[in-house]
């Protein structure tokens, strides 16, 4: 049993994967669908892949169509994130996660952010409102 932290469900589902942590907000239009690698210049994750990972980031940015289109293209290539943990929800990103059926949570116990680091194995259970750091 790993350490558990409370959270709040945005998009339903359960996911378990390796964590990747971004300090910057994300626009999924500027991630290469073929690899899942962030191509936005000067982004915290530039050059890193978030494909099939648990993506931990502040929130979304960009116009009213870019998140859905970006996640759709990633999904089509099997490279969308396995799950998402955010701090600032807004409608454009939230609706896109729900439609693309990617588990997403927010309002996580602040202690989680002190523990979590890149490469940790993490399980999100959005339906029961908790996150677990497995190793």
């Amino acid at each position: 049993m790993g350490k558990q932290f409370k959270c709040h469900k945005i998009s339903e589902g359960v996911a378990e994967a390796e964590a990747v942590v971004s300090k910057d907000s994300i626009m999924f239009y500027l991630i290469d669908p073929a690899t899942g690698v962030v191509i936005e210049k000067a982004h915290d994750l530039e050059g890193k892949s978030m494909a099939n990972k648990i993506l931990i980031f502040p929130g979304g940015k960009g116009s009213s169509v870019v998140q859905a289109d970006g996640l759709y293209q990633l999904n089509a290539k099997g490279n969308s994130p396995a799950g998402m943990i955010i701090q600032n929800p807004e409608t454009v990103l939230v609706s896109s996660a729900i439609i693309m059926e990617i588990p997403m949570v927010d309002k996580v116990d602040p202690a989680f952010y002190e523990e979590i680091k890149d490469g940790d194995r993490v399980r999100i259970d959005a339906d029961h409102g908790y996150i677990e750091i497995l190793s």
Partner: protein
Amino acid sequence: MILTQEQQDMLDGKYGKGTAYAMKIQVAIGESFDAERMVPITRAHVALSNQEADLWFCEKLLNEGAKCRVTPTVNPGFCLEFFKNRDMVAPEFADLMQRTHNAYKAIGAQLTYNCTPYIDTNVPNFGEITAFSESSATPYINAVWGARSNREGANSALCAAITGYVPEYGLLLDENRKGDILVEVQADMKNDYDYHILGMLGKKIGPGIPVFTGLPRETITKEALRNLGAELNTSGAYGMYHIEGFTPEAQTLEMAFGGKEPVRKVVLTNDDMAEILEEISLSGNRQIDFAMFGCPHFTLEEVKHIARRIEGKKLAKEMWILTSSHVKEMAVRMGLDEIIVRAGGCIVPDTCPDQPCWRHLAGKVGITESPKCAYYPQRRGIHFVIRDLDTCIEAALTGEVK
């Protein structure tokens, strides 16, 4: 969230699978924002984008039997007839636009193909609850008309048009519409273009609801307000703003801030404006290949202004003026279209700059007065010099910008 019997029936599939799917998405959005209930809308605007995800989502709802209860207006893709007749678009992209057209027609949208519904095709009343996507539209209807909408995505706005409801949270509630940031504009505001540049200062303004002071009343036109909203959402994410003594929920500063102190104060100067222009525009003193206007769509007044400037002259370079089909039709009736065509320009209805119909401009250098026009087509290899409208017109006449 507590649902009415009708809303619960929608969720349970009594109104068909497509409506149930739309309602399921909206309930999930509502719950994520801790909304307590859903409220009816009377208008919607969907930012149709003619991209794969847009078509996939609309077709999915349609194939499961969804129909719009509230007829939404829609954003432009590109005008099929115009670009097919001129052989400017590859067959696979013509097919995509045709399928997008067919899907939105079948689901019951009003096929306006116009990104300025708040001026042209879908104007709400004060206090009206709506679901508006399109980044220039949401702030315009909230700030200028005093109507209410969250910053919907194209997909969530389509769901709202289908169910006729939105979850009640965010900008739908009085307490969330008050200003956070006092923005004192010291920069010289002379014309509509200056509002484009002002809006690009989102990074300096920061997150929250800005309250602008110092904007000269005579410069606050519908075009200026359109430009301000469009660029605030190019440089950041803003569903709402206030202008002291002008917008309806900001008759006074006290009213704008709801009696509270601003969280932050920001001063914007001529230097800030010059600095941001340097960052977003190609440098001047060069030949240009074409001029493009109408991101967001140009008004009849702007078309008239261009016609006056180029009447009886010959343009050295292509000039594309993007408008609603209504403005195009008026321009034809009023003889403005003829003046522009004679000079070598073209009014294009129903079309957006970020579409595959502009493939002949890839690798070329354009000039525009709109930073948003310059921002999105970059990924198509089209780059722009940004200048005020009269400088752009002059550049199209001579072929170069100083």
